[in-house]
Structures are given as C-alpha cells and as structure tokens.
C-alpha cells in the first residue's frame, strides 16, 4: 500500500501509545475476573451442550447451580463437569442428557481432583482440536480457491428470522457474488444471558444465533463454495451478554468472522462495562485461536452522533479496539476495524471528507482488513437517491482499498432487505468496482488539499481525544458520555451480577491453553 496523505508518523505512534496506556489498567482488572458466560464458553468447548425440556441450555444449568451452591463459581465450572464425566464414565453427549434431565453437578464435591483434571484436559483438547481442524480447513479452502474472491470482500446480510429461509437468501447472495454472508441476530438476543438451542424459525429483524443454525448455514455456504470455487465466509455476532459463548460456538462450527467490539455492548446495549471487558477478552482469545476475523463496531457511533463532527471518535475507538485485540492475541490481519460512510449528504465536498476518512484508516491500519459500512442513517424512502449514495460509497471503498465491504441496500430505510435489494446492491457494486479497478494506483492527493488536510485534522483530534481519555481513565470517560454521546454508569447496565472474582483455586485449562498458544501472558 502506497501512502498518500503525508500523515505524521509520530502522531500515529502517539495514538497507539495512548491506547496502550488506556487499556492497560482495564486488562489488569479483567485478568482477576471470570463471568457466567466465560464459564459457559469453557464448558461448551469441553463438550457441554443441549438443553432441558424448558429450553434452558445445559451450560446454564451447570453454571447456575454452581453459583447458587456453597462452592460458587470462583473456582471455575469445568472441574465439576469433568469430575462428573470421569466418575460416570459417560461421553459428553450422555452426560449432557443426564444434566438436562435434572442431574445436579453441584450436589456433590469433586471426588478425585487429579483424575478430574486429567479428564478436563482430555475434553478440552478434543474441543480445541476440532477448532484447529476448522481453522486448517478454512486455510486449505482459501488456498484452493485463491484469487476467486472479490477485493474488497463483498459482505451481505440475511435476516428473515427463519434459518431455512435465510439459507435460500444466503445461497442466492453467494451465487451472485457475495464473499461474506452475515446472519443478523434477532432483536434483543444480545440481552439474553443464554444461547438458545437448536434450529430456529422465529425471529424479529433477524435469526437467533444458535449452534445448530450456525451448522445449517455453514453447510449451505460450503455447498455454494464448492460449486462456485469461491470460499464464502460466514459471519455472526459475538456480542451482547454471551460474547464468549457465541465465539466458542462459531469456532466449533467454522464461522469465519464475528462482529466483536470491545465497547459496543456497553454503549449500545447498556451492558455493564466490567462484564463486557471481561467477556470481550475471552471471546477474542477464542476468535484468535480459531483464525476468526473480528469486525468492530465503530460505524455505530455515527448512528447516534454526527459523522463529520465526531470522525475523531471513530479513529480513537479503532486505536482502542486494536489494542484490546492485541491483548487478546489477535494479529492485525484478523482485525476488521470498523468505520462507515455516514456523512450528511447535503455537506459540500462530503465525498472528499469520506475519502479522507477511509484513506486515513487504510494508512494508519495497513495490515488490517478494514470493515467499511455503507450509508444507513441518511438513507430514505427515496430508493433511487439511495442507490446513488450507495454507488458513491462503493467508489470510496475501492478507491481507498478497504478490506470488507458491507453492501449498501437501496431500501435501508424501509425494511430488512428483500432478495432483489441484495441483488441490486451486488450488481451495482461489481459494476463500480470493476470499472474503476485500478483507480487507487492512479491517484495522489494534493498537498494542502481538502483530503490531506481533513485526514491530518481528524488524526490530531483523535490524539487529543485519547489524551483526554487517558487522563480520565476509560471507565470514567464512558460514564461521562465521551463515546457516541452515550453515558453509562460503572455499576449500571445489564449483566453485572454475572461477574465473578476468580478465587485462589480458579482453574480454566481453556484459558491457559489459549494464552499459551497465542503467546499472551496470563
């Protein structure tokens, strides 16, 4: 990538340095805590799955009963599960069925800790091997079909609420050229402190993320991939109250990308900040181990605050998301840092400001597959004008070498996409991107011109914004409403009661193995 903006390297380095200083105290806190969903994710990797007759998932049954017992969760949940597996000599499926029928793990203490540990390690090794196999399979397929995907990757969303209907739409999208298919989650799943079980056909504005739904969609996309000789990436949302569990399920079913932001849940779902910071680390470690590309959510800032005025908060958040991701062992090539084309279309030279923002992100994060989001907020019922806005966005994306391109929908302001909306989005993007394919190599930005000046200004502002955050501390900055104009109290929000201090005997071989494999200290 050729740099064109003449941005100050010292400023960029300063931004990174500030991000490290801001994140460090959070990580210190995070390492001392676990959460109910971190424990459930751990259990899932060891084989806990299924649900009882009322739909309560087995991992929840285990964690809830331990929590309310004398032993609590401070030692972690896995040893108890492994102890039951060891003593009963049952394979996980059979043990899960017994737990679903009412067998209570908390009802008896661990018999032989050494034997239980050996059993736990064996179960964890099997889960992690399955995840590694998935990773190898993805790498093989990407090698086999090398050069067949679009650049940037064209990303489409399906959201019918019914997984079987989603399959039809996803296959159609993939056949027509989509490289990435995301199954949007149903309204409010992010606030459930459990992951539903099995295939689902009822959702509002999206489809439940369940492991079975993941499996169904994975198989459907693999089928198209073989036929088209083009690997189709599958995406879901490791966000909300079950970040780590969804990451675990995605890793087990070979998802390729996860929406996974370090602060989105706090700001946009009112989830408690301590809970989120603990959950995001574990979920990102799983993603890193599984080779899953994360997509961060900076685009959301621009839905509640102005894209021109608050461009610096997007860059500042990218620096923070990057730092949090490094702390969890993710390499830059798996960081799909987010941003969006959301400026008010009536601004004079607005396109130039968008170009500046996109090119700036490209240059500051050179190895990261940037995730670029289309206009949404200013899309209206005028679908014809909307298509023009989407075309300008397509142009900006290709002109600045973005990595993951979420296709704009001309009906964005009206409904979740119809099949033909997606088709129009794909065809128009392919046209724009093909006809200007080498444009980026052809152009320079004039010194002292609008684009260079704007990028320099946003970088300056982002650095002073980060300086302010460093002084206040991240938690207090969020509480003061510095991000997205949303204020969150430190002890407020959902899910705080699921935060648990690790006891002296806390034991989690999944965490230990991930830290070892990813080379991050505990």
């Amino acid at each position, binding site marked *: 990538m050729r740099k064109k903006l003449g941005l100050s390297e010292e400023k960029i380095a300063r931004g990174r340095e500030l991000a490290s200083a801001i994140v460090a105290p959070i990580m210190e806190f995070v390492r001392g805590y676990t959460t109910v969903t971190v424990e459930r994710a751990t259990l899932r990797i060891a084989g806990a799955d299924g649900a009882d007759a009322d739909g309560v998932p087995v991992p929840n049954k285990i964690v809830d009963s331990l929590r309310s017992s004398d032993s609590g969760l401070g030692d972690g949940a896995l040893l108890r599960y492994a102890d039951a597996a060891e003593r009963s000599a049952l394979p996980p499926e059979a043990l899960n069925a017994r737990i679903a029928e009412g067998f209570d793990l908390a009802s008896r203490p661990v018999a032989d800790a050494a034997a239980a540990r050996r059993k736990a390690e064996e179960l964890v090794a099997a889960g992690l091997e399955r995840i590694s196999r998935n990773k190898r399979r993805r790498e093989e397929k990407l090698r086999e079909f090398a050069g067949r995907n679009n650049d940037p990757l064209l990303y489409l969303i399906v959201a019918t*609420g019914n997984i079987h209907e989603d399959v*039809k739409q996803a*296959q*159609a999208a993939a*056949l*027509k050229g989509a490289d990435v298919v995301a199954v949007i989650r149903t*309204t*409010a799943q992010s*606030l459930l402190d459990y992951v539903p079980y099995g295939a689902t056909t009822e959702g*509002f*504005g999206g489809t439940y993320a369940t492991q079975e739904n993941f499996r169904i969609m994975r198989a459907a996309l693999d089928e198209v991939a073989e036929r088209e000789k083009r690997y189709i990436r599958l995406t879901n949302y490791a966000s909300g109250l079950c970040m780590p569990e969804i990451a675990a399920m995605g890793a087990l079913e070979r998802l390729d990308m996860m929406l996974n932001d370090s602060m989105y849940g706090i700001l*946009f*779902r*009112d989830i408690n900040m301590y809970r989120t910071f603990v959950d995001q680390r574990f979920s990102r470690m799983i993603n890193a181990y599984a080779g899953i590309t994360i997509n961060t959510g900076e685009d959301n800032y621009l*839905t*509640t605050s102005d894209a021109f005025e608050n461009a610096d908060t997007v860059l500042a958040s990218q620096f923070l998301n990057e730092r949090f991701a490094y702390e969890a062992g993710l390499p830059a090539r798996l960081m799909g840092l987010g941003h969006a084309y959301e400026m008010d279309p009536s601004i004079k030279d607005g396109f130039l400001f968008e170009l500046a923002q996109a090119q700036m992100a490209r240059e500051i994060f050179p190895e990261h597959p940037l995730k670029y989001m289309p206009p949404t*907020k200013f899309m*209206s*019922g005028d679908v014809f004008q909307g298509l023009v806005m989407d075309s300008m966005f397509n142009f900006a994306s290709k002109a600045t070498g973005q990595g993951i391109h979420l296709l704009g929908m001309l009906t964005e*302001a009206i*409904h*979740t996409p*119809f*099949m*033909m909306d997606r*088709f*129009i989005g794909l*065809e128009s993007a392919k046209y724009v991107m093909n006809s200007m394919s080498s444009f980026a190599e052809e152009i320079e930005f004039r010194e002292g011109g609008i684009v260079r000046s704007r990028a320099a200004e946003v970088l300056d502002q982002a650095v002073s914004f980060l300086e302010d955050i460093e002084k206040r501390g991240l938690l207090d900055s969020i509480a003061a409403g510095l991000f997205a104009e949303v204020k969150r109290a430190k002890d407020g929000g959902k899910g705080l009661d699921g935060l648990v201090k690790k006891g002296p005997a806390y034991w989690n071989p999944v965490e230990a193995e991930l830290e070892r494999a990813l080379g991050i200290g505990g």
Partner: protein
Amino acid sequence: MAHIVRPYGDTLDDGKVQLSFTLPVPDGPKGRDAARLSVLGWGFRDCEVVHSAAISDDFSFYVAYASTDRGIDFDSAKADAASEAEAAMSMDEIDEYIRAVLGRKVVIVGACTGFDAHTVGIDAIMNMKGYNHHYGLERYKMIEAHNLGAQVPNERLIEYAEKVGADALLVSQVVTQKDVHIGNLTELIELLEAKGERGRFVCVAGGPRIGNKLAVELGFDAGFGRGSYANDVAAFVAKKIESKAKDR
C-alpha cells in the same frame, strides 16, 4: 365534480407506472412471460417487461412498465398527519400557548418500548438539541420532558408516567418486521384501559412506519411518522390537553 387522477408518464392520463419485483421462478422466456402475466393479472394493461435477471437458480428479478386505466377521486384522499391541523407552531409560540391557555407546565414522558433499541427517533423529538434545526421538548420552557430511552417495557412506562403525573405518553416504534410494533402499541393501550387510566394521558405514537391513521386505529390520540418534529407533537399535545379539559 370529482377530480379524477391517474399516474402520469409523459401525457396526462396515460396511467404509466414502473414496477420492480422478484418471482420465485428461474429467469428466461418463460419467467418473463410469467412476469408480464402477473402485471396484467394485477389489473394493468400494456405491460412491457423491460429487464429480467437471474437472482439465483430459482429466483428472477424483473423491471416492468405498464399502464392503468383506473383513476381515483383526489377529493376522497385524506392527509394522514396529525400535525397538519396544528399547522406549524414554533417552540416559542407553543410555550406561550401553554402558558396562556393551561397556565402550568405540561409533563411528557417518552420511550421506545418493547425490545426496540432505536433511540435516535425519540431523542430527536425529546432531547435538548432536537433534530434538523427543531429543538426537542427538553428545551421547551413550559414542558417537563422525561425521556426513558429504549427497550422500555410498557409497564415501566406507565409506572413512571403515574409517578411523575404525566399529561402525555410518547411512544416510539421503529422495528416493524412481523408487526412487532402493533403488538407493543396495542399492549400499552390495553394495559392503560385495564387500569382505567387511558383517559388520564394523551397517548402519541411515532416512528418511521407509523402513521396517524394506524395510531388512531390502535387507540392512540395521534401518530407521527417520518420527518416529524418536536413542535408538531408539542402543539398537538397542548391542544389535546386543552380540549380534554373542556370536555370534562
């Protein structure tokens, strides 16, 4: 005399319309004819399918032009806007009106209810800074505005309104897929009726897919859609409180 109107292409009363749609059949001559027959079947004439494309093996996309003979009487059409009657009072005028006519502050409680997490619309109406150069209700001197944010259960909204002695409830609904908004809005009215409190509050619904007609059908006093502003709602609420007082 009736004022009959038909769509206009390039000549008065040519009745031209443009349509685009998807059929669950493969693209090809047979699909194109199916598209043409569909359009004719909907009552149009002279259908031309000007574009078709395969969306997948089993689905195809069409663009078609056709004409209609059918006209409607323009005088039978009604503007679906609660605000039209209030014809653009400004913030200052509304404050003045409340001061003069009611002589006390109006208490308004707003929320986006159910699982709907969209706050931007209700914020546009309520927050100090407002939207598109129209200040929000918090800025009105004669209005005490309480914005409860999003994902607020109907029960909580009512409880809160009782607590602060609200005059009006403002409810935002943005997600409409599978008619979730209908359920949420209906539930609020039913809860109020069950408590015998429907008459106590002016109830206003809003959101991009909400119209006055729909809101009134669901038992609200009014509904405000896309592009509505705080002063539209404030004027409506103030006048409604006054007329309710007179009725008593």
